[in-house]
């Protein structure tokens, strides 16, 4: 068992918890969490009060509506095909293209709406750990709207992750086999008796449950036969097992032989010792990001396995451990783009971001919700940062703080076009009023530049920055202070403070 930390804790530790188990917060949110004491604070995160349906999905994503839309589309397609049957080939092609393009336009707009819906939820939720776990599962069971195309399916998958975020990893893996978006993404429905497709079993073993080295090519080959016949019924949006397309002959997977189907192979996987270790390492890396001794992995994995792979107790143990609050852990993790954007908005107390900002930010920084680059999900940590994305982070902060007026230069419209999505905004709004500096940095505070800088250091860094950095900030503030410190100067000071390597760490 990991050593427990005391219930008494510092504001700095509360900030650390809120940032890692959530997406950070403004000073009052951190203080509110701190006031609960460590144990109740963790409990409030692992068992949130906020109902699952607190943020209604877009109307077209509601199951009944989405299914009815799918059925209507199938009807329309049949009609179109009947109409063009009598046309000469070139004209038929044109009509078909028009039909498909109309559908694409709708799907692209829905895609944008879906991304906006989830980002807004992450920003406004009072259950931040649940949203962070939803993001974790989205990265783990990666599925992209670029291939799946129907945004409703991605939202259903998102709801699946949210509702099962703290439950059993084994059960979630079973559920993912019957998730329409995943079935389309990994071509599961193409796997039929006599022609098994190895894509799904390979990704399940390599990426979702075991990792390389803990299965053989033969296991994949055999498992592929078990995963035959799983198909998406487009008229009701449900995945079902078509037994006629299923290979029911005996297969041998992990040394066991039997006429297995998909769920039975997943059970066999979870009878191995490795999935528990695999997920423990991944969870630790995601939330703690420091090296982990193998014997600690074994210890945590044993409990995880015997609890039937329940996520809640594992998260609870990690967030209550003294290891989690060690100095080497605090502010050592590079923020992923979504974390960066949400934390920035919260720390500047901006409840509603400027139009287009979340999407432009995600695209420039390399992490767009519902669009992981491939089935392995995103590369985390240092991979988020290169000369290009680092400068983009600084410039996005400049735009948001109003420290830089070059709003129109911020968006290179050409480069924000992502295949399969509606083109991103051509420019960020010019008339964006900026954060409420009267509230964040009231006038009396601005009398004393040192106090002003310290207050902002507390807000953005929740603790120490290197001495030379603090001195630089104070020098800059002193240089800026003329007769009064207007909002403009505060903005520039904030912009400078945020344009630093230290701000990228959480």
């Amino acid at each position, binding site marked *: 068992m990991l050593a427990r930390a005391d219930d008494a804790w510092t504001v700095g530790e509360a900030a650390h918890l809120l940032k890692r188990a959530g997406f950070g917060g403004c000073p009052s949110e951190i203080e509110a969490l701190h006031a609960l004491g460590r144990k109740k604070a963790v409990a409030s995160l692992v068992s949130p009060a906020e109902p699952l349906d607190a943020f209604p999905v877009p109307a077209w994503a509601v199951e009944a509506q989405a299914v009815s839309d799918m059925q209507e589309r199938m009807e329309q397609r049949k009609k179109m095909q009947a109409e063009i049957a009598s046309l000469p080939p070139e004209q038929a092609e044109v009509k078909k293209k028009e039909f498909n393009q109309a559908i694409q336009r709708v799907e692209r707009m829905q895609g944008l709406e879906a991304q906006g819906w989830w980002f807004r939820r992450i920003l406004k939720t009072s259950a931040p750990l649940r949203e962070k776990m939803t993001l974790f599962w989205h990265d783990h069971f990666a599925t992209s709207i670029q291939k799946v195309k129907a945004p409703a399916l991605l939202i259903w998958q998102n709801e699946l992750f949210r509702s099962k975020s703290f439950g059993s990893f084994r059960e979630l893996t079973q559920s993912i086999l019957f998730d329409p978006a995943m079935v389309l993404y990994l071509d599961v429905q193409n796997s039929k008796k006599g022609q098994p497709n190895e894509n799904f079993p390979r990704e399940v073993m390599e990426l979702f449950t075991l990792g390389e080295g803990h299965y053989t090519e033969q296991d994949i080959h055999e498992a592929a036969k078990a995963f035959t016949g799983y198909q998406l019924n487009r008229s009701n949006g449900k995945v079902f097992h078509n037994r006629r397309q299923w290979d029911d002959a005996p297969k041998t997977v992990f040394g066991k032989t039997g006429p297995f189907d998909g769920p039975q192979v997943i059970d066999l996987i979870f009878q191995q010792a490795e999935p528990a270790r695999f997920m423990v390492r991944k969870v630790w890396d995601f939330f703690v990001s420091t090296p982990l001794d193998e014997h600690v992995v074994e210890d945590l994995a044993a409990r995880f396995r015997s609890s039937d792979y329940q996520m809640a107790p594992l998260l609870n143990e990690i967030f209550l451990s003294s290891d989690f609050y060690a100095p080497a852990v605090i502010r050592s993790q*590079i923020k992923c783009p979504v974390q960066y954007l949400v934390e920035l908005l919260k720390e500047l107390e901006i409840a509603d971001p400027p139009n287009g900002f979340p999407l432009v930010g995600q695209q420039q920084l390399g992490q767009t919700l519902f669009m992981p680059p491939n089935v*392995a999900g995103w590369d985390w940590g240092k991979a988020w940062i290169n*000369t290009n994305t680092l400068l983009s982070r600084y*410039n996005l902060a400049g735009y948001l703080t109003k420290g830089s007026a070059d709003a129109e*230069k911020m968006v290179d419209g050409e480069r924000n076009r992502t295949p399969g999505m509606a083109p991103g905004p051509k420019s960020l709004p010019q008339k964006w009023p900026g954060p409420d500096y009267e509230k964040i940095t009231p006038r009396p505070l601005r009398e004393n530049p040192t106090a002003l800088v310290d207050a902002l250091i507390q807000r953005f860094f929740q603790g120490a920055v290197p001495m030379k950095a603090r001195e630089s900030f104070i020098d800059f503030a002193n240089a800026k202070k003329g007769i009064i410190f207007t909002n403009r100067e505060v903005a520039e000071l904030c912009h400078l403070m945020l344009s630093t*390597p230290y701000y990228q760490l959480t």
Partner: protein
Amino acid sequence: MSPDAQHPLLSTHLIAMKTRREFLRSTVLGASACWTLPMFVERTFAQLHEGAKDMATQPVTGKDGTILVVLQLAGGNDGLNTLVPYADDIYQRSRPRLAKKEKDIIKLNDHLGLNAAMPYLGSLFNEGGLGIVQGVGYPNPNRSHFVSTSIWETADPSNRSTTGWLGRYFDNACPGADPTVGISFNKSQPESFGAKKNPGVCLTSPELYKWLYSGGEKAEAEEFFANLNQPDDAPTDGASIDMPAGGKTGSVVGEGNLEFLERVALDAQVSSAKILELASKHRTSVRYDGTPLARNLNLVARMIAGGMPTRVYYVSHGGFDTHNQQANSHDRLLGQLDSALKSFFTDLKEQGNDKRVTLMTFSEFGRRVEENASAGTDHGKASCLFVAGGNVKAGIYGKQPSLSDLSEGDIQHTVDFRSVYDTLLENWLNVPDVKPILGSQFPKLGFI
């Protein structure tokens, strides 16, 4: 000049002993911790050229030297429908829906043809300038995208290396510490740039490649910014966290996260001024498509025209993982590749730089010989690759792989990809010793 007579400011000893950040802050620039950016950049690059002349090893700069462009075809390019063995019965029978017939190809000889979506490469083959290497792969092939890509990028078939082959090239064969010796145009740094000392820079849009600030006293603000965005002078023993080696992601091996961020911040400044200047100066008259690949090659061409000292550019073209309904999508991707290369080489020729650039394509693996049930192909093993440029000796290299002697239904490799790397490193980039880069020498091919 005796080997002991050294340039007073840039002796090999100095380079070897000092870390890069110390080099940049050396007495050449004055002991002050603060300097204005443009002056700093000019001086550093000038010093590098000066010092480089006296060194035994080749000059680092691509300003007058040769340039390599590495073009990744991401997803696993289907070599059989790229360099098509149209006359092979087995090929035709294995792919009833996907096989290219004689009318769908550009004939190169009696056995092989190029996919007809690539007319420019076809003409390049005939005019001289395109080499095609067949059967390229490595022992114990891996069919995972991530593992196999990693193997190609690190040039380590055991997939244990934390540095990339290009990163090791920068570290071992490019004296001086110019961060722009390698530029990649992807959102994330390619693994091949992973290095111990110099992992190159990453760029997507030159106009945005700088710190945007428009408030008052801009120069002052930029000075503060520069100060806050560089590594600390103070020793960092014990201050950085013992992170697992991050070399593979394009960072420097053994760096903690804060050190890494500070280094990237400094690299960003050093490279941004130079790149901005060049990007605004040189425009091309050649027409490029709107695909990301074409736009990136356009940028590469502009930088070469502008005299960037970059030696290696890295670009990607994605979407080759054609498990489903391959016919149209694969041809379209090859067509985009062809068109982008046509614009790029035409541009270079107009500039008079076509003899200085060699471009190499690579993909993590080829695809299976037999088509699958979804009119696509699954992950395979060996495949072909292209080497193109004014100095390339046109031809088909390597042995045509047998379609009857397969390994689990896949093409077996006859050329180890490291032979291609070795050929380019030794014969094109003039590396005197490839052992620190590739581990050992590999039999070279004759394309350059």
